[in-house]
């Protein structure tokens, strides 16, 4: 019970760190042109805030998010690439900060699982269609009701 309470308190403390939970992060930075601004927005949108964990770095109003945004901006100014900036954050905060999980051993299932499901499903569809296209009129042991469903000869 005590442990549960402590955890709740910890969560609360984190929530408080978020400060104004539903306030927006509006943080004017001195971008030199629109391209740089767009790059910054895209990059920070793909990074996850550690304090308010359901927000990205661009939107989070947490103090740490602001610090990290400024750090990202500074790294951009130093001429670092997006990949280098991401690596900088991963080195400190782990893959958790990446909303775009890297393709690696631990995420193979994530990235290729849907493909596997798609292939399996496609195989079933192909088999079904082939079988159905070869089939003649329904087998005679089916009831008449079954083979004359509600298709009223609509042309559509």
């Amino acid at each position, binding site marked *: 019970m005590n442990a549960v309470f402590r955890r709740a308190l910890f969560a609360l403390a984190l929530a408080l760190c978020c400060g104004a939970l539903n306030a927006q992060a509006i943080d004017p930075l001195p971008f030199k042109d629109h391209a740089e601004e767009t790059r910054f927005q895209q990059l920070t949108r793909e990074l996850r805030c550690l304090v308010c964990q359901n927000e990205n770095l661009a939107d989070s109003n947490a103090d740490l998010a602001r610090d990290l945004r400024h750090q990202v901006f500074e790294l951009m100014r130093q001429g670092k690439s997006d990949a280098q900036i991401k690596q900088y954050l991963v080195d400190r905060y782990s893959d958790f900060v990446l909303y775009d999980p890297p393709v690696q051993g631990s995420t193979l299932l994530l990235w290729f699982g849907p493909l596997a499901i798609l292939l399996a499903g496609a195989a079933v569809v192909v088999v079904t269609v082939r079988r159905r296209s070869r089939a003649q009129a329904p087998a005679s042991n089916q009831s008449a009701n079954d083979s004359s469903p*509600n298709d009223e000869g609509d042309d559509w």
Partner: protein
Amino acid sequence: MTPELGQLALILALLLALAQGVLPLLGAWRGNGALMAVARPAAAGQAVFVALAFGVLSWAFLHFDFSVRYVADNSNLALPWYYRLAAVWGAHEGSLLLWIFILNLWTVALAALSHKLPDVFVARVLGVLGLIAVGFIAFILFTSNPFERLLPMPPDGGDLNPVLQDPGMTFHPPVLYMGYVGFSVAFAFSIAALLGGELEQAWVRWARPWTNVAWGFLSAGIVAGSWWAYAELGWGGWWFWDPVENASFMPWLVGAALIHAQAVTEKRGALRAWTILLSIFAFSLSLLGTFLVRSGVLTSVHAFASDPKRGLFILCFLAVVVGGSLLLYALRAPKVAGGKPFGVVSRETAILIGNLMLTVAAAMVLLGTLFPLLGDALNLGKISVGPPYFGFLFTLLMIPIVLLLPFGPYLRWGEKGGLPPLKNVAVRAGIAALACAIAAAFTTGWALKAIAGTAAAVWCCVGTLLYVLKRWREMPAGRRYPAEMAGMLLAHFGVGVFLAGVLLTEALSVERDVRMAPGQVQTIGGYDFRFDGVHVADGPNWQGDQGTVTVMRDDREIAVMHPQKRTYTRGQVQTESAIDAGVTRDLYVALGEPMDRNDPEGAWALRLYHKPFVRWIWAGGLLMMLGGFFSAADKRFRLRREATEKLPASAQESHA
């Protein structure tokens, strides 16, 4: 005393739900008409008692009964009456009560409109719905009682979460639940069909309008949620792939597949087992959404209070309901592929491919949503799965659907017809799409997403419109567009509108965080935003700063906007953005902090957006909703005597 009355009503509702869940099913099994006849009155009685409980809770909110813990936690003396009413479903306990109440509404509607169906079948359907109600009412009573007392009674309450104090939020949950819960009807129909072993597709015809309506509501609920996130969370985004959003999106995807599969089964008798399975999936995913949101197993914007006991209860319930029905499916689903054969180029094949893509998309969303949990389980480390993953894979999976969509109405059932009309459409829609894509390329400066969006939207819309034209020319007035077809055309057209909205917004939106002193002007997307300072503005239960931003274009005033920053009674800060809506663009302004805290007269941080075509996203969603409602209204679905009279005979056969 009153809150206890609510609790008593819930207990009685539970007893009636038990009666509704057990007796008619027993009756249907034993062929006992008296037991089967219990279903309707029990459902009605249960609805009355749940409505009573709902009324009692509303009354407690309206009269500031802070001795009820739920009321004290979620409202206070300063909260206006309309938000006190919305607060009834503003948190976990009350929203569950709303869930049950809506389940009752669906059940009563079904009980009232099913008099022409065979009694055995109705008894099974209502019985299944009764069992679902048992689970949820028990969940409320044993783990999440909204009527729990708080003693001593506090003089004033907490607050409804300020993000929920918005008109959009008042509608979002009820409409969304109408959709979630609505799938329970299709579910109950298919379980009844499995239990009865009546392998006719007749049940599908009865289930179709219910499914379409539920899906329409779900579309509307998702649109409302998306719009609310856009306007109220203040981030200007319209979809975040958050677990809670995904929880509503998965049943929607499967529901879309189900609507089409039901059409095949109803009209052609084919894909019967698949339709049953999809009905089970659609409702299971609705339940799963409830589990994800309320068990706290995932981090999300929307986590309700997360108590492991609650999680465990829903999990057990989920295991029984879904596990039981899938087992029943494995044992009793039709084994013989029935129905009419179809060719490779046929509407059935196209629908199958669409079904495949939609269900794989739902599976992908499920995998992505649960993967962080899987990462914990397999010790892969903490992994985040976010918009880049979902956006990328979802786009890939939807490409075949977009490509096939214009052909849908032209394709014929079975084999008749053939390729020539399809080529015709492909050429015309293709040329239109290409022309518009080239135009888009030049006007948007080769923004790839904008080009793709224009092409995809024109492809879908022109293809659909060509069919509208064809019907207009070929059919006599009055028979051109039966409601079922009109619904399909509306929804398909909606897909095109939606695509245009999504991709054009993504490609062309401009967002800028700026520092502005009064009088200063910023130009975004051809609009001049002039900041005219900030003054104090107070509401019933908040104090705030209100900025004034005048928007001009070519020296003509377009709008005066008032973004606010509110501080609510309990200290929560909430950004209220100002939005100037338009058909081709939204202007969006949010107020940040003063650059110097001691000088509110000076410069402020502001966020300015120019969002072209963002409204088309919701317009597309609403068209899909209308499509669902229209189709359901088709005369064909009104029950006819002859279709139903065949049933009892075959039902008895299967018992023999």
